[in-house]
């Protein structure tokens, strides 16, 4: 599979090559293996936001969790700053987590209800960065201030249940930042928040990106926020990459039938997609499957689609300034 070469002089923070993740599951018919992430390659540059868009079962969260090494890859490599982190363990893994942090979807479930806000930040600051005493106290204050949790003195001593959803997500972000990471994997960080709060969290993540030169993998199901926050968007279906391009380009000029379907279904697009597709079935993730995972819902599908997974090809016209526009479809123009 073609690996995306950096065209920019910017350095790649993350390089993922042919990543495969497998899970063994028990079902009625005995044990089987599913492949939620199937030969996926991408890179994230320093200071770049890669938005990863897909529906449930697309493998987007699994990629995020594998990137911070909660899951172990079954194949392929993850390089961080040039170093292979795909199978590191122990101290090396702990060290790596200083660089790669994760913000989870549910700010109600990812905080410890019996710890004060301050304690949530004291732990990583002490453990990973060795701050103590007055410096530690100051650093906690700084972090809270940076994520907009003010007045700091009042917030410090509160417990998570005393915060609103938006405030909790800010704390989760502060906790991720505490170890001074280079990469933040944000898995649907705004989807559980109220509409009026979401924009503030996106803005905060944007500000922090500039301030700290952070790179993000922004995982979402919402193309509109992906377009806003992401420099590039990668669309996944059934564990496979369908399309990857500059955000504006992808929304303006979607080449994959699945991306087009997603776009048309997104509220606000006023798309009149004819969903002949009543199949509410989840994509087949079985390790034995063949062909393009989207074929069974695809209006353009032909025999070859059901037999053979199309390769990712660069479809950007030579004249365009959008760089790469990767598409995996037998029928893309």
């Amino acid at each position: 599979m073609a690996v995306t070469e950096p065209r920019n002089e910017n350095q790649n923070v993350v390089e993922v090559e042919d990543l495969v993740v497998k899970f063994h599951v028990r079902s009625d018919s005995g044990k089987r293996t599913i492949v939620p992430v199937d030969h996926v390659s991408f890179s994230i540059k320093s200071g770049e936001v890669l938005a990863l868009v897909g529906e449930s079962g697309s493998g987007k969260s699994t990629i995020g969790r594998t990137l911070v090494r909660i899951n172990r890859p079954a194949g392929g490599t993850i390089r961080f700053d040039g170093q292979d982190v795909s199978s590191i363990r122990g101290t090396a893994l702990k060290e790596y987590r200083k660089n790669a942090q994760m913000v989870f979807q549910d700010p109600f479930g990812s905080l410890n209800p019996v710890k004060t806000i301050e304690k949530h930040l004291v732990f990583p600051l002490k453990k990973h960065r060795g701050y103590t005493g007055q410096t530690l106290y100051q650093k906690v204050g700084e972090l809270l201030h940076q994520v907009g949790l003010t007045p700091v003195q009042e917030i410090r001593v509160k417990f998570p249940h005393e915060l609103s959803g938006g405030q909790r997500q800010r704390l989760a972000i502060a906790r991720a930042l505490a170890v001074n990471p280079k990469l933040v994997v944000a898995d649907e960080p705004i989807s559980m928040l109220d509409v009026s709060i979401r924009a503030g969290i996106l803005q905060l993540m944007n500000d922090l990106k500039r301030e700290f030169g952070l790179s993000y993998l922004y995982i979402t199901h919402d193309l509109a926020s992906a377009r806003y926050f992401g420099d590039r968007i990668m669309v996944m279906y059934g564990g496979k990459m369908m399309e990857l391009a500059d955000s504006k380009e992808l929304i303006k000029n979607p080449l994959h039938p699945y991306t087009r379907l997603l776009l048309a279904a997104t509220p606000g697009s006023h798309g009149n997609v004819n969903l002949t597709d009543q199949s509410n079935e989840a994509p087949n993730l079985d390790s034995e499957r063949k062909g393009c995972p989207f074929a069974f819902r695809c209006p353009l599908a032909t025999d070859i689609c059901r037999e053979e997974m199309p390769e990712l090809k660069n479809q950007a016209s030579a004249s365009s300034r959008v760089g790469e526009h990767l598409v995996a479809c037998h029928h893309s123009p």
Partner: protein
Amino acid sequence: MSNNNPQPVLELRNVSVGYESARGVVQAVRNISLTIYPNEIVGLIGESGSGKSTLANAIMHLLRNSAFLLGGEVIVQGQNVYDLNSKELKKFRWNRMSMVFQSAMNALNPVLTIEQQIADVFKAHRPQMSKHEIHDKAVSLMELVSIHPKHLRSYPHELSGGMRQRVVIAIAIALEPDLVIMDEPTTALDVVVQKSILDKIKELQKAKGFAVLFISHDFSLVAELAERVAIMYAGRLVEVTGSKELNLETRHHPYTEGLLRAIPELTAESVTIEGIPGNPPDLINLPSGCAYHPRCKYAMESCKTVPPVEKDVEGRLIACHLYTEEAVK
């Protein structure tokens, strides 16, 4: 009552709902008046804690757990819902008005087949129907929501989320009610599935002619589905507007405007978004005057003390001092 308009399907007159709490009565819904006509889809938008689900339960006369109607009238098809005794109410519910609940995906009974659950409705409300008739009815309902009737024998866990949601909708419209209240029916569904459910709701609504009160927190979704949109904040209606006017070129309540600015637009050339500062209010400790004033960039002195009343602004109902002052001039 106006004579020209058809009889409204739903009329809310100054509805207020309270909750008993340790710190006294908390008003979750304050003085809401709203009318829905036949064949209409009205969207109700609000954030968590705005009282939108409480209002839905109040309409269904389903308030419980220390919640109660503080005042006002809920009139469905000319009938005051709160004048019915419990026996009448049981008949009235589902026959005349039904509801699709939030997280309806989990509203189905896991140990009964789909057919048993659809049949339940008929057994309770149409005792004269034979088993055979009920089965036929169940088959046609499944076809109506585009699910193969073979799934009548399935258990809920055997269906996908989208299919379960369709079943729940089928159950809600089984007795052909005049009003269907849908409380966040597509939350937790994938966008493509969501779109197909919304299309289905529109299609059914056109075919059957029931009115829908569609409750959601998703602005762009409601704007696409409903003709009129009511926006709630801290238990009050702050605006009722046509969905076509939901853009920044039109003048709105500052909260509506804030929401419009907070949503990234999918197709615009450049996107800027702006969050609304602060947090949704605590109902126990509501700000004085207009509850939105601590977050409002246009807030004036009067906003801190006097709650604004609804005014007609170019055909939209807006409760904001920006417009009342203007009206006075």
